[in-house]
Each structure stands twice: as C-alpha cells, then as structure tokens.
C-alpha cells in the first residue's frame, strides 16, 4: 500500500562534497581552455602593472552610482552648450582644411622658436620695423597675415 505523501527529505551535500564538485568542474574548464586562460592571466598582469585594475574594479563596483552622478550632472542646463558642442566639434573637424592648418602650424612653430631664441632680448625701434619689412621672411609673414585678416573679414 503506497499512500499519497508529500514530505521530501532533501538530499544535502556536505560542504566538502560541494567544494570537491565545484573544483572538479573548474579544473575541467581550465584544462579545456588552457591557452585562453594563460592569455587572460597575462592581460590581468598588464592591467595590474598599470594600476588600471584598481580603477576598473572601483568603477564596476560603483557603476550605478557613477553613471547616475554623471548622467544627472551632465543633464543640467549649464552643460547643454557643451553637449551641443561635442557633435558640432565633430562636424567642424570635417569642415577644416587640415593640410593648410598643418602648414600654418609648422610655420607657427618656427615663429615660436625664433621668438624664444632672440625675440625676448632685443628692443625694436620704428626704424627697425621699416627695415625689417625688407627681410624676406618677415615680409612673407606680414603678407600672409594681411591675407588672413582679409579672408576672415569676408562674409
């Protein structure tokens, strides 16, 4: 006679059994993925050496808070121009004549260099200025600046 019953005596694994089983499972996974795990360890090491691991851990732990702080802050009205600027900057980059700018910036660098070498020590009289125009380098700079000013004023 088998009466209806509902009591279940649960099968409890001991802590040792559980640990043993888990370790076995992990061991097998390690054996199956040796290469990947070794590479993973290398990567962890690199992150640890650079101190990035601590930052990552801290950020992950506090992800929701940091995200909330950031998003709430950045949603304030005062940042609206900034936020609008970010994409505008992207479009600006598209419009700029980069090779022209590169030329200009190397000239600017030359100028800064010359300025640092001599420019701080000498004094310049009005006559020196007139004379200087005859110097082909100064003359070229002045001409370029005059054209730049003209272009900038153009509508």
């Amino acid at each position, binding site marked *: 006679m088998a009466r209806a019953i509902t009591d279940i005596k649960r099968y409890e694994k001991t802590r040792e059994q559980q640990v043993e089983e888990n370790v076995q499972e992990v061991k097998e996974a390690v054996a199956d993925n040796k290469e990947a795990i070794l590479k993973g360890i290398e990567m962890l090491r690199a992150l640890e050496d650079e101190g990035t691991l601590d930052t990552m851990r801290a950020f992950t732990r506090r992800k929701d808070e940091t995200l*909330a702080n950031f998003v*709430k802050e950045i949603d304030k009205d005062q940042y609206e121009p900034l936020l609008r600027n970010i994409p505008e900057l992207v479009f600006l980059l598209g419009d700029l004549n980069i090779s022209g700018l590169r030329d200009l910036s190397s000239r600017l660098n030359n100028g800064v260099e010359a300025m640092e070498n001599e420019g701080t020590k000498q004094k310049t009289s009005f006559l020196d200025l007139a004379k200087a125009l005859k110097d082909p380098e100064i003359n070229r700079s002045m001409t370029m600046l005059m054209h730049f000013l003209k272009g900038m004023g153009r509508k």
Partner: protein
Amino acid sequence: MNEHTVVKINGNEYLADPDQNLLDLINTTGEQVPQICYNESLGPIQTCDTCIVQVDGELVRACGTSVKAGMKVQTKLPHVHTAQKESLDRILEKHELYCTVCDYNNGSCEIHNTMAEFGLEHQSRPFQPSSYEKDNSGSFYRYDPDQCILCGRCVEVCQDVQVNETLTIDWERQEPRVIWDNDVPIDESSCVNCGQCSTVCPCNAMMEKGMEGEAGFLTDTEPGILKSMINLTKKVETGYGPLFAVSDSEAAMREETISKEKTVCTYCGVGCSFDVWTKGRQILKVEPSAESPANGISTCVKGKFGWDYVNSEERLQKPLVRRDDHFEEVDWDEAIAYVADRMKKIKAEKGADHLAFIASSKATNEESYLMQKLARQVIGTNNVDNCSRYCQAPATKGLFRTVGYGGDSGSIDDIASSKLVLTIGSNTAESHPVLASRIKRSQKLFDQKLFVFDLRKHEMAKRADRFYQPKSGTDLVWLSAVAKYILDQGWEDQSFLNDWVNGFDEYRRSLEPFTMEYASELTGISIEELKQVAQEIAEAESMVVCWAMGVTQHMLGSDTSTAISNLLLITGNYGRPGTGAYPLRGHNNVQGCSDFGSMPNFFPGYEKTEDDEVRARYEKAWKTDLPKEPGMDNHEMIEAIHDGELSMMYVMGEDTGIVDANINYVTDAFEKLDLFIVQDLFLTKTAEYADVVLPASPSLEKDGTFTNTERRIQRLYKSFEPLEGTKPDWEILQLIAKSMGYDWGYTHPSEIMHEACGLASLFAGVHYDRLEGYKSLQWPVAEDGTDQPLLFTDGFPFEDKKAKLYPLEYELMYEPNEEFDLHVNNGRLLEHFHEGNMTYKSEGIRRKTPNAFIEVSEELAKERGIEEGAEVKLISDSGQATGVVTVTDRVRGKEIFLPLNDNGKSAINYLTDNRVDKDTDTPAYKEIAVKMKVLKKKGKSPIPHNNHRRGNPVPQVSVNVQKKWQREDYVFPSKKGGQ
C-alpha cells in the same frame, strides 16, 4: 478574360495580379517606399500616410490603392518625397526617438528602421508628448501613449485577427489614443491578453512587460536616471545619423545577451510556433512571426505569457525515492539503478505484461517513440498508451472506420476558407483560441457561416449564425437525421458517392430509424430547424466540421464521430480545399504521441502489432522478439491493477490521478501497485503515490518535434539548458533502457526521429533537415519529402481508394434522474490548461483567474434560492466536489458547468465514473448526473473584477480611419497640404 495587368513603376513595367494591392506590388520590385502601419499579415490600415506615391499624376496612399492595367506609378519624384517626409515628421511628433535606452531597440523597430532607410536626418517639428499616463495596469503588457503613433495595428489585430474586439482608437477626442472597451484601464477590460497587440506594434508603445528594463544594457536604470538619459540622448543628437549609429551598435551588442530560439507551444493542439527571447533562464518575450505555419502572428495568453512554470520554485531537481512515509532525494545513478532493478524483478517474477507505460502528450514525438520502444523492446509488452485515450481516441476511431486516416483532413487554412463551419461540442474560443480566431475572422469579414451545436452558450455560440443546444449525448441522432433528410430529398453529392464511397446501401438502410420526428424528440431541436440545417449543409459550397470533447467524451463518442464523417461523405465534403473533418486535438502533441506508437495495438504510423510483416520489421531493427497481442489501454490498466494483474506502472508527464475519470477509483489503484514510477516537472497529485519520481525537463529545455492537430510536424529548439538536476524525458528513458541492457546510444533527438521514420512508412520522408526553423511537414510524408496538407485529394487510403460509409445505431444510455437531477458539463477555460499544473504558476494569470468556478443558470439559481458567490457541493454516484457559484446565461436549465482546470476540491473527476466510450474506453467525462447541496446562499463572486469575462467589447471593423481623415486638423500630406 486572361488580361495581363501591367503597371509602370518609375518607368519600369511590372506584371501584377489583377486587383493586387499596389504597395504589395511595389514591395516585390525592390523600390523602397516607407510604410509603417502596413503589415502583410494585417493588410492595409491606411493610417500612417508614409507610403504616399504618385499614381497617374495624383498623390495617393499606395496601401489603399489596387492596381489597374496601365497604371503609371512614381515613387521618387521630389514632391512625392516631400509628402512622405511630411508623414514621417508627423510620426516623430508623436514618438520620441531615444533608441539606445529603449527596450525595443533590438534591430526590429520599424520606426527606427524606416527613418534610417529613408535617410531622415533632422526633425522639422519637435516631439509633442501627450497628456496621458502610461497604462501599467495589466498583467502582461503596458501601453505608453507618449510613444504611440496611432498606426492602429493593435486595433486591427484585436478587431479583425484575434477578433476579441477590445481595442479601438477614439479619433474624436482632442488627443486621439488607443482605448480599451469604453475607455477603462487595460486590467479592467475585456482584453484576453492574447498579446497580439504587443506583437504587431511597430515600436515600444504596446510592449510586453517581460521586456521592460531587461532587453537593453542601459534600460534597467531607475526612472529618474532613465529620463535624464533620454534627455541626454536627445541633446547629443544633432541629426538622426549619429543617434542611429550608436543605437544600432547597442542593438547589435544585445544579440550577445539575448537568445532567440524557435519553439512550438506546449499547450493546446493548434501548434503555434514562435521565437522565445531569453536572457539566461529569464524569458523576456514570445515573438510569433508571419512564417509560423499554424498561427502566423497569433497567440493566446498561455502561449504568449504562460511560461512561468518553467522557472517555478516548485520544479523537482532531484529524483525522489519513497522511503516509508516520505520521499528521499537521491542522485540519478541511484534512481535509475533502483528503477531498472525493480522492473527486472517484477518482469522475472510476474511476466512482462505486469508492467505498463503511459506516454505523455506533452512530451515530444521522439519521447513517445522511446516510451513504446522501452515497453516493447526492453520489457516485451504492448501495455503502452497515452492520454489521447482521455480525449480524442473516439474521433480517431470514427475516422479510421470511414476515411482511413485518424487526423484532421486538412489545415487550419481550410477551416478559415470554408463556406460553412460546424462546431460540435467544442468550446473553440477557449480551448483552441488561435484556431477559433481564424473562424471568427472569416465569419466577421469573409461571409463564412458558423453553426454551433453545444450545450453551452459560449463565445462561439454567441457569435454563431445558428446556435442549437441538442440534449447531452444526442449529436449522433441529429447528424444521422440530417443525413437521412438530405438523402430523402436527393441533395447528396451523387458523383462523389459514385466515385469515392463504398457501403452506401447498407448505410442508407441503417438511417431508417432516424426520422425527423425521432430526432426532434430526442435532441430537442425542432423539425423545422433540423430541415433548415440539412438544406444549408447540402447547399454549402464547402463545409468543415470541427468537434472536440463534447462529442468524444461520451459513451457513444466513436459512433458520433463516425456519424460526422458519414455526413461529410454524403455531401462530398472531403478532398477539396475548405472541406473535411477536424477533431480538434486538445494537447500540443496528442496527435504525435499516438502517431509515434504509444498505443497498445499500434506501432508508429498506426501499423498493427498483430501484423506479422510489421512486427518482423521492428524485430529486425530492434534485434529482439516482440509481443503480438495488443496490450492494455489506460482504462484497462487501472482495472487490471484492481484485479491484481498489473504490478508496475510508469507514467510520463501526465497527472493521471487528476485527469482520469473517477479519480478515487484511480488513486485507489495506485495504492495497490508494487512499483509506481512518475516522471514529471512537479510533485503532482499522481506523483504523491509514486515509489520513484524522476524530475523531467519541459519543452523549452529540449530539442524535438511536436505534431499539431493538422498532422503538422514541427521542430522545437532548446531555449536554455535543463534546470540543474533535471533531464529531458528522452534522456531518462535512454538511461533506464541502458541499465536494463539496451544501449540505444542516441546523442540527439534527431537520431531517434530518423530511426522512427526509417521504420514507419507514414513518415518516410520526415527528416530534421526538412524541418529546419519554421519549416514543417504534414503527414503522410513520402520518401522524397512531399507532404499532404490536404488529405484525400487522390482518394482514400483503402485498397480501392474508396471511403466507407459506416452504419450506426443509437440508444439513449444516459439521463439525469430524480435523485441526481443535474447534468454537469465540463471543459476548459481560456487562461488555464488541463489540471492547471502549468498555468496556475503564472502570477499574471492567477491574479485574474485564481480558481475554477461552477456556472449555474439563472433559472436553477432562482429555484434553489442561491446567488452569485454561493458555495455548493455537487454529489455524484462516484464522489463529490465543492466550489463557488457564478450565475450566468452561458448555461441553461438544469445544466451546470465546471471548468476542468482545477486540482483542488473542485476537481471535476471526483464526480466522474467508470463509464466509457464503448469502442475506445475513453471516459465519458461529459455524462455526469449530480445532485447539488447548497452550503452558502451567496458570497463573493469567484470571478474577480479584473477578469476579462466582465469586460465590454466594442466590435467594429478595423480602425475607422475615415474618422481620422474627417478631423478638422487632418490634412492629406501633399505639396500644398503638408506645408
């Protein structure tokens, strides 16, 4: 007459079908026209205006235009483009694009995709939120008016596909919106939670709650932050390009965490298929698609939302073995060894026929095959059966007698396209909801006629063109009388009878007693009405008959099924589209479980165990001698236990102790078994009697195939791994066979299927490759893979290809008497299934339908002085059940209805007895006479305030877009109007 319809689109000529929808045609040409409200499964709705094109010089909606020969269509002219853009801008006024933080950003958002394809970079006018709140009141989906673009797809699907008629758009108010019934919250409405509105919604306006905060990486944040993030997304965007780039990347990342596997529904026999979206073990949503062969985009509440049982806390996770007064959890090795040893011992001591096996209509075809293989090959007995014995075996019997195949004659499409549908003893709208919707749609929109024969005035009865309530168990009489009258009038299909049917004369003679007077007296239907029915049946161009348990669960279930088939034969309603016999299968795999051999007299494919040639084939394949004589069916097994002739029973996935008739008698039998093995997800009522309980895995955790009511074999794919400690049934059976010395060595269910199909010619061409994804096969399947969606187009499977008319007699065997004066009818509720093991695990369903109830007619309530909420005890010859009363016009007079979906004190089978169909031993569940004792005169209604039965549907056709066009603020987007 064969005029070609040639249409010029952007200068190129295309051949169209006459009257084809223009947008349909454009979509086949590779031309891109935006279209948001249009969905092929729904047809044109004409609300969104985005598919505007120029036809012969005029701007029109392509979806609202039928092609005409010589039409000239332009889709790319600048002013056409401007009009389309205007329409898209109007949509974005109503829908905020914050895709990256939207749960609907899964690559399939139709607004997102349309805008991206159109190349819309900027919005001309800002988003205008509505003044409405989100409606979160329902169990399963929510509505966000701020995201709703009023495309009306949800209304279309609710009104004309599901035909529940709950949703409308109120175009007349200042801010139109979707409303439920007469503008009540979702939860208080007539909504049945079929979920189709959320399936067809092109965006996140109508969305499954399972998706909310779960689908995206950034969408689970608290509301305040989410709002900030939405604002942020909007600020950063200067155009939609970058926004789409970011959100598309996020959508692609989601593919990593969300898995989408196709499965086949595990509830009724319609066989809906859909993708299940999961994240780990969590189910986000169920997504049917137009490709789903049985259901298309449709689902019911159970298939769409009823999956909580899979992750229920109550799942068993260790095999249980009985030790005195309790079960003890043991590991699998121990349980299997115990089962094998005990079975071997019983077989050795008492013989193989002392062991019996019951397969499950919830399990796969492969598992049914293995159950009978275990019984026949390993044990050596034919004592194997399945739960179709409880429901549709009589229908199978009736069809075998007459037409030779025990399955639906055609597909659900044939039911939908038939001119006349008869349903007999079928509460279709609740028991086979998705199939019922096809009938409801055809009747509502395409002039299909629906005649309903049932005791109860259920939804289909209320919708029917004609509704008759023959007295319980008398269907055979009116069917035969109608057949006789048709023959008497000479209205039969003479040429069909000549060409395709045998046995006419004998059948004709057998009809002699079934005069109109006799039929009218027995059924209670007037002679006039019976004659009308006969005439309309005879005149119908095509007719299908759908029937269910109201026919089969009677003592004359097989004969009544036969009478249906006879009537179809004399009217020539077999073998043509839109005709045939449709015994609606109750469980997902009732059909397949019998198909694959878990029957005491049949090998797979309905080949007799007594046939020496057949048996030799299996003996060769299985390398052992096999028993010849048919074994015991379920009913005989229970009797044999009482008689001491059966010592062991193995029940897989079936709560026999609740679902078999006369459960007191059944559970008494369980107590007498030497060994009782139950394999299930839960510790069911049946399992409580077991010696060993083996924890199995449900459909979402395994691969395999199911066969639906259309004989359609479909594959299911594992959504996630079996819950820890559980195993799929096929693996468990294989372990037992192995420990009994038979190493089957299957590594995947496909190998089982291929073995079965190599042996059973009915399935010769069935192969997993031919069933990939949403592909399916309807048996019989020839070796080259040709299947038969519609049977009998080339004759019947008998030697001379002719069907047989089968003569019948009738004798009234059951009637309530003076003591037991009430007739109890029983059946399903839409939202619960079977004994409720699965659906009661769903909180969302439980809060709307917490328990079964007893339906009592207004007349009876008055007579007994009871009101809504009364408590009564029903007492039959066999036992008693108690429950709470609802007073309703769904039942009449002295008939009461008790849903079978309960396993507590209201379980119907405390009342049922041992009477069975004389031909198949199917319990006569529907023949119960009881007396009623009132325990409490009135009380709280058993139907909660938020149950859909209390709702007030608002029927209309489609979405009434004309009312939108009539609004003063509406202008058709054209060059002039739009600016």
